[in-house]
């Protein structure tokens, strides 16, 4: 049977809507029992007072840390589901200033030197583009053992889009992990070695796709990682 283009587009839109609703409901309804777990464990510790043995205390701390982690994961899921619905304001954006704002936020917790050159000004989703830079810079600042972590940001003008390049001198990744880095909750490092949740890059990909662009990554283990993304010049 032949399908015309119209119903197919409609189907896709319905499916997308259903998916977003699902993510929203799951994230909200999962938070209630999680809050209960977190509260109850705090109260158990509080009520035991001096009777709390070091073993139990340690286990309760671990329990609460995991509950906190799960809350942050749920918040990540929520943020992911909100990409098509939030921060839709379109304005004239000076990307140099935008990168400055994003790097100020990253540098509150990390050391990072940023070299930005020939960045454009365009009319686009300002907040979304800032979020993309924030997570890419955050990523560069987190996954590094370099004594002087640095990032180089540049842009090339193409016909319909700007090609942004964000390159770091971090620890880099193995070839086989590259296609997984954009997956939700994926992290190339062991979970107890860092606070990363594996949310940032999947959010970045979702935002870039929402804006009508594409993103790719190349990396050399021990030398650094480079993200390249196309960001359309105009908002459709």
């Amino acid at each position: 049977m032949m399908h015309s283009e119209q119903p197919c587009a409609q189907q896709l839109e319905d499916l997308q809507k259903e998916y977003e609703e699902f993510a929203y409901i799951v994230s909200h309804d999962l938070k209630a029992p999680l809050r209960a777990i977190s509260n109850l464990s705090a109260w158990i510790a509080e009520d035991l007072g001096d009777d709390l043995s070091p073993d139990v205390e340690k286990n309760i701390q671990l329990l609460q840390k995991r509950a906190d982690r799960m809350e942050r994961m749920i918040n990540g899921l929520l943020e992911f589901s909100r990409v098509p619905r939030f921060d839709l304001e379109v304005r004239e954006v000076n990307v140099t200033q935008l990168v400055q704002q994003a790097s100020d936020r990253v540098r509150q917790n990390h050391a990072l030197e940023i070299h930005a050159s020939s960045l454009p000004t365009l009319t686009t989703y300002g907040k979304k583009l800032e979020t993309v830079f924030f997570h890419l810079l955050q990523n560069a600042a987190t996954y590094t053992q370099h004594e002087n972590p640095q990032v180089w940001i540049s842009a090339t003008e193409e016909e319909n889009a700007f090609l942004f390049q964000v390159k770091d001198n971090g620890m880099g990744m193995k070839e086989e992990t590259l296609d997984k880095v954009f997956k939700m909750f994926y992290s190339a490092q062991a979970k107890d070695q860092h606070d990363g949740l594996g949310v940032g890059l999947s959010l970045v990909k979702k935002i870039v796709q929402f804006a009508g662009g594409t993103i790719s990554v190349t990396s050399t283990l021990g030398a650094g990682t480079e993200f390249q993304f196309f960001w359309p010049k105009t908002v459709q």
Partner: protein
Amino acid sequence: MEEQEVNILLVEDDEVDIMNVQRAFKKNNITNPLHIANNGLEALEKLRSNSFPMPPIIILDINMPKMNGIEFLQELRKDPELNRISVFVMTTSNEDSDKINAYNLNVAGYILKPLSFEKFITSVATLNRYWKLCERP
């Protein structure tokens, strides 16, 4: 003149969230009488049967079975006997649409349920300062 403590009606269906409020009251040395209703219908029944001194201050959860928080607020604002009662909404929902719905129904405040109990205690302490003002003759 003897100070009359204002009664508080907590409309909430989750047992642990009720305990949360009770413990936060205790931590803040809040001694105001606390009454519980598990949903909007039960709350309206309690308010209309004068089972405690009127008017109370209401702390309201949004997501509840039977009659949810927004539906309860709509009923409350329609009732000439009850429509002036101060209501604080307490919920996990950070959605703008829920906030707008609540503010359209004239609520005094919107408290996000945080994961940490410590943060919740701070919120309740703020509430306490507000209803101390309400108690002034």
